């Protein structure tokens, strides 16, 4: 470990979630040089582990009008700047026989007072809009909810920021801060994939690490109390609802059903967990049962629908009262450590929601830009993200391959034009989600993809019904071609991906998911002998050796 690379920048952002990547873009657009660091891939933490709900704010209208106000503002902005990440489905807040119908008027009143459009519907009208909604509903209110794809949002933030010179380091952790007296001037980092150490010197460091932000603060000997709450969700095999369905009552468990791209999501449960558990979340049988039972109250068809997988995320709740846990905020917490702790060079942006990531970035960048003497105004609410730009002059194309249509949803039509248009480029890798060789090449080369899990976040590869059964071996081979991987390395990527898919399938291993998993196991273990790949990998250190010779 002789040589250590050193980088210099104005702002170092720690955390590549929705907030971190939004700050990266905000800085870049204001002409501030910045670098972003994440210990994993972008959107791999809480950002990618929620409903992907484009809140209208209605859910918070009664209990938290400030959040509701922020949500409706950002809702309108995201629809404009991130149209390729947003599906304007609208949402229903339904009242079931067991709910109090009088809550409806409280709800409508609260929505109007923060500027959320509502439309009261009769049960018949609601059923016409959403045929799968529970037909025993007493009433419904329509609000401008929608869906927001967090993976696409983060990838687009990064793509745009890079265009203006920003740099990203994924799979890189902070090992310690570099200090000059009472000032943070950078961080010593380690790339966990290559084991290379490097240092980044920056005028300002931003801690946007979400729930992991507590750890980052500890590197600076600062104490922030965070209260992790686990939220579990289930992914359904296909899209069973067209509109987001909520219960018109105070927020509770498993009361939001969101149609996300080709699937639907039901969630969430809420359980306080110990901070030491944040990296080892498990979805329990009990949670699965609650989600199905409560979800079926929103849309009875859910009970008969195949469940693809389960996952859980951690809400990054912050105690702003100073450590005694009495005042836990679900809102945005911006900590200027110079003011709060007398430590300059570090700012933490914690709490908040996926919905408010752009706003959080604006608030943070405002503070940091001022310190750097940069007076450029924020423009992230005005400038569309790459992929969102060209919707106005969209021409209905006649003979477009399904993969191109699917890719246009994900990356915008301009990006699709860059794909390899040869027969090979057009051939399908992921059949469930229509991902082509060309799209994978684009993702590997342009979207900071290092493995199949990253590739999934950029393209939806392996997110469909078969959960990687048919695409994994095809896609891992492409890493040899486009990602400078050896045959053995790509086999390891294959195992890594299947293990990651397996983690989410395990909690729902019944019915068709079980049959599918069994078939997948049969292909990869029975036919390909996949388990031997890892064995050979550990037994042999000679990288040049061709392991597949018999």
């Amino acid at each position, binding site marked *: 470990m002789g040589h250590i690379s050193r980088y210099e920048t104005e702002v170092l952002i720690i955390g590549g979630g929705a907030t971190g990547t939004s700050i990266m873009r905000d800085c870049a657009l204001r002409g501030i040089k910045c670098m972003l660091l994440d210990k994993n891939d972008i959107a791999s933490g809480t950002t990618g582990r929620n409903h992907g709900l484009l809140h209208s704010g209605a859910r918070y209208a009664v209990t938290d009008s400030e959040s509701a106000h922020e949500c409706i503002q950002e809702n309108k902005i995201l629809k404009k700047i991130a149209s390729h990440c947003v599906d304007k489905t609208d949402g229903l807040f339904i009242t079931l026989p067991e709910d109090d119908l009088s809550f409806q008027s409280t709800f409508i009143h609260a929505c109007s007072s923060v500027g959320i459009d509502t439309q009261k519907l009769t049960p018949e009208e609601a059923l016409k809009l959403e045929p799968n909604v529970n037909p025993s509903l007493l009433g419904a209110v329509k609000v401008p909810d929608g869906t927001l794809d967090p993976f696409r949002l983060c990838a687009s933030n990064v793509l745009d920021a890079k265009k203006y010179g920003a740099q990203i380091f994924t799979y890189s952790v902070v090992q310690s801060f570099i200090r000059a007296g009472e000032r943070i001037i950078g961080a010593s980092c380690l790339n966990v994939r290559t084991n290379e150490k490097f240092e980044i010197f920056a005028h300002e460091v931003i801690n946007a690490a979400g729930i992991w932000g507590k750890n980052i603060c500890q590197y600076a000997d600062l104490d922030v109390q965070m209260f992790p709450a686990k939220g579990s969700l289930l992914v359904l095999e296909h899209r069973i609802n067209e509109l987001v369905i909520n219960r018109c009552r105070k927020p509770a468990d498993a009361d939001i059903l969101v149609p996300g791209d080709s699937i639907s999501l039901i969630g969430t449960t809420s359980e306080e967990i110990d901070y030491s558990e944040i990296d080892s979340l498990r979805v329990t049988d009990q949670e699965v049962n609650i989600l199905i039972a409560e979800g079926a109250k929103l849309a009875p068809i859910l009970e008969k629908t*195949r469940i693809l997988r389960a996952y859980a995320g951690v809400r990054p709740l912050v105690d702003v009262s100073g450590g005694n846990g009495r005042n836990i905020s679900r809102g945005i917490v911006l900590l200027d450590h110079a003011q709060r702790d007398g430590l300059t060079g570090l700012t933490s942006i914690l709490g908040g929601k996926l919905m408010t990531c752009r706003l959080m970035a604006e608030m943070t960048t405002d503070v940091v830009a001022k310190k750097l003497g940069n007076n450029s105004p924020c423009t992230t609410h005005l400038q569309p993200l790459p992929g969102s730009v060209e919707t106005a002059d969209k021409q209905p194309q006649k003979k477009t391959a*399904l993969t191109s249509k699917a890719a246009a949803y994900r990356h915008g039509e301009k990006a699709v034009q860059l794909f390899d248009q040869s027969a090979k480029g057009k051939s399908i890798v992921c059949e469930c989600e229509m991902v082509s060789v060309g799209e994978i090449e684009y993702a590997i080369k342009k979207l900071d993809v290092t493995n199949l899990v990253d590739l999934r976040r950029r393209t939806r590869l392996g997110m*469909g019904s078969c959960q990687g*059964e048919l695409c994994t071996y095809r896609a891992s081979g492409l890493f040899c071609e486009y990602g400078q991987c050896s045959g053995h390395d790509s086999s390891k990527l294959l195992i890594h991906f299947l293990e990651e898919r397996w983690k989410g399938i395990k909690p729902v291993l019944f019915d068709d998911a079980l*049959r599918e998993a069994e*078939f997948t196991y049969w292909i990869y273990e029975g036919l390909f002998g996949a388990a031997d790949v890892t064995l050979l990998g550990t037994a042999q250190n000679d990288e040049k050796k061709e392991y597949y010779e018999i």
Partner: protein
Amino acid sequence: MNIAQNSFEKCIKCTICTVYCPVAKANPHYPGPKECGPDGARLRIKSLDYYDQALKLCTNCKRCETACPSNVNVGDIIAVARGKFEKKVINPKLMRDFILSRTDLFGTLSTPFAPVVNKITDSQIIKTVMHKTIGIDKHKALPKYSQGTFRNWFKKNAPDQEQYPRQISYFHGCYVNYNDPDLGKDLLKVLNAMNIGLKLLNKEKCCGVPLIANGFHDKARKNAHFNVKNMTEAVEKFNTPILSTSSTCSFTLKQEYPHVLDVDNSQVVDKIEYITSFLLREFMNGNAPKLKEINKTIVYHTPCHLERSGLAIFTIELLRAVPGLKVIVLDSECCGLAGTYGFKKENYDVSMKIGKHLFETIKNSDADYAITDCETCKWQIEENTNLKTIHPINLIAQGLTA
């Protein structure tokens, strides 16, 4: 709710359907039943942008469903999607599809002038004109019409049928009515020899299968309602079984009505039966007609819809019950015609490619006849092998002693 709507998620993507799909094998432009069926159904819920015009390349042979180990009605999913989303473009080919699928209408118009119509459609000039204008392939001979319909012939014979103690209702279908009344007449002989009388439904229309295949689902649904109504009357009045000599008509009446057209046939479905399964049961129960030896060799071809119905074994066993007959059962594979599909200029080559192996096997056999249960398989085999192809009923009628 029809079955196709909720069965797609049982698919575990094993892709066996695409392996068995005759079209996917012959035509690289067809994405195959897995992608067009369950995969597509899932994506089409998200957006109709995902409707692929390639679905019209499906022949509706249902071999995908026969192959599926997960009970996914793959072919139904494709047929339903076509019915809902296929865009009809007004052009000469639409006229052709109209002509090919309106078997009732053109049968009624043509039978009175059968010799003239047959001569015209057989002329090389007309074939070339049809090839160039509406896209009926010039290599194809359109089915010949008979002079006079089966129904008309039957009117004269109906009173005789009353004398038999047992009765069945016969759904003759368009083919027997307009093209081959002899098959209906043979059936009548066979049944009478077994002391069973034959009735017709009060009225019937085309079962609807060519309409489904050409994407005219509304019209097909009208026919289905009409036929279910008439079959219900027959069952209520006479409590007879309803028999069909067409493997496809009976398949459509029983399965396509509820699965593809969303037409409830539950009150009659158990009464509808394909002829060979009815006959074999009678034979096994001791009610076989007296048959003389037929010292001939036949090759038997299994039609796709009979395969899907799981009834091929009945025809095969029935043929084996004919004394002296040497039965060679061919590999079960699609002949390529698929009703109206192979008549279309754009499908002709694929259709021939699908049937190639079958044709060669038949040509290399020393059989006296080919036997099959489906009229369109018959046309395709005769046209491409020059071997006379008959229905199992025709053969049994030959063996009757009286």
